[in-house]
């Protein structure tokens, strides 16, 4: 039954959006973290989405996360000599997370997740009706 593969498609998209929400949560949680050096500073993470094509049927295209990239935006340092993490010059290094960007990202991910849920529910309804056909 060809409607079944919609569960795979929408499911893959939901799992991908879930990973996106997870990275957003991690970024927002770490937006105020500081560290002792520029290398250790937290950098914003972002998943990379790619289409995964079914070999048997090219029309079926789910989503997969091919990797997580880190943001290369410059790290800000702050003079805080009283901080135990501060280096010899008394600087701590802040994360390069942009909270506004992350919030926008979060809303986009949650909307995409919702539309996939909608697709799943509609397909489920159609399948149930098909099962009841002729009754």
């Amino acid at each position: 039954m060809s409607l079944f593969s919609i569960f795979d498609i929408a499911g893959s998209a939901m799992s991908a959006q879930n990973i996106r929400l997870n990275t957003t949560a991690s970024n927002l949680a770490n937006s105020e973290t500081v560290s002792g050096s520029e290398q250790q500073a937290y950098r914003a993470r972002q998943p990379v989405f790619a289409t995964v094509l079914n070999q048997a049927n090219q029309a079926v295209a789910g989503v997969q996360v091919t990797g997580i990239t880190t943001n290369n935006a410059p790290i800000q340092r702050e003079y805080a000599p009283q901080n135990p993490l501060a280096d010899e010059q008394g600087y701590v290094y802040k994360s390069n997370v942009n909270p506004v960007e992350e919030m926008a990202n979060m809303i986009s991910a949650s909307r995409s997740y919702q539309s996939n849920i909608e697709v799943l529910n509609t397909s489920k309804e159609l399948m149930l009706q098909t099962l009841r056909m002729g009754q």
Partner: protein
Amino acid sequence: MNIDKALAPHASALALRAQRSRLLAANLANADTPNYKARDMDFKAALGQTLKGGDISLQTTHRGHMSPGSGDGAEIQTYYRSAQQPSMDGNTVDTQVEQAQFTRNAIEYQASLRFMSGTIKGLLTAIRGE
């Protein structure tokens, strides 16, 4: 009266609607995938092709012959949608358009289903003769 013939256009339409909903679901699933191009099919042409081609399943005259599958029709032509507002990352999925098309397709699927149910009920009445 041939039962196959009585159900003919709606059975094919139902299979094609299912296939189209799969295409649209794939579009919605890839709404955030860079470089994904939204696809759709020409339903009228596809239905015409299926009906003209007669049976979806091929005739098998030898037990070694394999069936090409039940109306999943990988050979149905799909087209890329021309995007009204393509995004910077090369994605051409317009979520609103896809959602509207998906809902419409679902309703049309239900319509075909209703027609089939009606035919089946009619046939049952005729068979029972009550």
